[in-house]
């Protein structure tokens, strides 16, 4: 048996004692988790707006740890320290061969593929600790995790880098990087990023690393804007300034060359019946402003590029298709093909080019995970990133 953060219902997650995992398939490995984070998209689950999350599900998709058991076909060895990508990918299918790891055909169990196939025309791949739409795999906010296709996903990390330096290779660092890559940044570019959550901040860092001349960060949480500023971005607080006007002025009337929507739907609806309301009223930075994506499409220059790492799940109403076509825009989006980026980003961390530790605001014992969720949701300005340590002694006892 082991301890794990489980979903019980909306705003009700608890650390329970559950069955510990065992090797089932030949390519599996079992990881003893040393660090695991709460992700912004975990708040979608917490708010009960993602379909297919069931009571008892173990959450968490950003995790790393030590290999404690391996299946006969795993390439890992006991004792190795690994970071595990949140996307589960077989490495053998058509999509994996194109390095489209987040589109893997074989990682989502057959009977779980129907819902996404109905909604999107094609089935989603498997993800850790998320919805049963993406497999219903037990996640990383636990003492142990069964990791399928362990010969493809996990990356072995050197001992001289500590957990905090490499944990975010599992999701948000590659997600921010891919967001910047999707914006196809050129040296003279002005890039605008909506949302200064972890992904937005890493997208800012990545855009600057890729040589953007100017990055403008948009949010309303003062502390988060300060983090963006510290990375080298200019900042616009949408509660203080007119965003569209500001961006036009700051880009000399041309409009920004590339825009990145790192907001997505946030925690305001995913179920089909909520979608229209979400898009009409709720999609935006924070709670009740206009849609970030709509604003981004207006702000981007003619012939510009639109990158969407923010999570969307349903249908959009009043989507400015005309702006997309008439301005000749390019739109790129998608779940992150994590395995494609891990190796390169690990070496950038090793060389000191990228630092991810600035993001971590709180480190808690796994036992205190429920409190971590509550604060991450309710105090977004200062609780920028929560890392859970299963080995840590709880502060509340």
């Amino acid at each position, binding site marked *: 048996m082991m301890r794990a953060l489980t979903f019980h219902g909306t705003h009700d997650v608890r650390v329970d004692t*559950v*069955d*510990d*995992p*065992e090797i*089932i*398939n*030949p*390519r599996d490995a079992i990881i003893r988790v040393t660090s695991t984070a709460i992700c912004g998209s975990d708040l979608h689950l917490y708010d009960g707006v993602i379909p297919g999350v069931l009571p008892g599900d173990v959450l968490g998709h950003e995790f790393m740890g030590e290999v404690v058991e391996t299946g006969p*076909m795993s390439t890992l060895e006991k004792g190795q320290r690994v970071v595990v990508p949140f996307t589960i990918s*077989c*490495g*053998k*299918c*058509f999509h994996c*061969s194109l390095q489209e790891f987040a589109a893997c*055909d*074989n*990682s*989502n*169990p*057959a*009977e*779980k*593929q*129907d819902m996404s196939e109905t909604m999107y025309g094609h089935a989603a791949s*498997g993800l850790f600790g998320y919805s049963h739409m993406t*497999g*219903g*795999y*037990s996640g990383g906010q636990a003492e142990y995790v*069964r990791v*399928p*296709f362990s010969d493809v996903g996990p990356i072995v990390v050197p001992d001289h880098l500590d957990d905090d330096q490499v944990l975010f290779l599992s999701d948000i660092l590659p997600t921010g990087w891919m967001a910047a890559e999707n914006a196809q940044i050129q040296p003279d570019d002005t890039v605008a990023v909506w949302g200064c959550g972890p992904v937005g901040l890493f997208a800012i860092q990545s855009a600057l690393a890729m040589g953007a001349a100017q990055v403008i960060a948009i949010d309303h949480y003062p502390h988060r804007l300060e983090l963006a500023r510290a990375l080298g971005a200019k900042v616009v607080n949408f509660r203080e300034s007119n965003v569209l006007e500001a961006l036009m002025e700051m880009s000399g009337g041309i409009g920004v060359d590339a825009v990145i929507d790192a907001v997505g739907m946030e925690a305001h609806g995913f179920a089909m019946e909520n979608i229209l309301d979400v898009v009409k009223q709720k999609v935006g930075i924070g709670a009740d402003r206009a849609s970030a994506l709509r604003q981004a499409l207006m702000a981007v220059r003619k012939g510009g590029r639109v990158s969407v790492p923010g999570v969307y799940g349903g249908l959009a109403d009043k989507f400015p298709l005309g702006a997309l076509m008439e301005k000749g825009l390019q739109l790129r989006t998608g779940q992150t093909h994590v395995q494609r980026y891990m190796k390169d980003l690990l070496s950038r961390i090793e060389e000191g080019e990228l630092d991810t530790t600035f993001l971590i605001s709180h480190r808690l014992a796994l036992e205190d995970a429920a409190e971590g969720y509550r604060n991450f949701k309710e105090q977004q300005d200062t609780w920028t990133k929560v890392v859970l340590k299963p080995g840590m002694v709880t502060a509340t006892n």
Partner: protein
Amino acid sequence: MKRKNLANETAPGIAAVAVTGAIAAGIGLYVQSKKRSRNTPADSAPGFTARRSFGEYDVVGRSVTIARPRDELFAFWRDFANLAQFMENVERVQPAGEEGRNVWTIRAPAGQTVDIETIIAREEAGKLIAWRSVEGSDIDTEGRVTFDDAPGKRGTRVSVRIAYKPPAGEVGRLAAKLLGREPQLQARHDLRRFKMLMETGEIATSARRRDQTRAVKQAEKHKTNQHADALKENA
């Protein structure tokens, strides 16, 4: 009613016109069908996808591309005993004496099983296997799997079509109940599992423990039902 076989079909293209031979045994019904003007020329879509009825027969199927060589996939399928590895409702398939004859033991509701004996009706090495139930089977069924080279280096396009007609009577009632478990969905799931097994060497499961996998639970549920039924009979 005169019956043609899936096995007589030669190319997928013909399927569009020929309404999958008479998967439907229902050429007659097809003509009666008012869904399509008889003057409309056939399009290039596989016959299976047509918007019309197949008469008394239910037809399910799908195509999937598998990144493995054609011969390897053919050989795996040709050994019918392998099919139980990825077909969820199939408990086992055993050779029945004569070459090409097999008995399929299929899980039915209430812990029962239905045996269907099939023969290989047509076979082209590396290309096609067609089977059909022998005269007097509980379920009148036929199936066909084809293996084509996929474009480029994408491997093999595998297409499966299965047609069946549940008979009348007590067995028929049982069979209908069995097949009522969304056969289209079942076929889709089975083919996905086939792809997983061939490409990755395993079938994806999100279970944490071996006794919680869907395959094990399915088999156990079946046994429990059998047990419950036995108790009922004794009572």
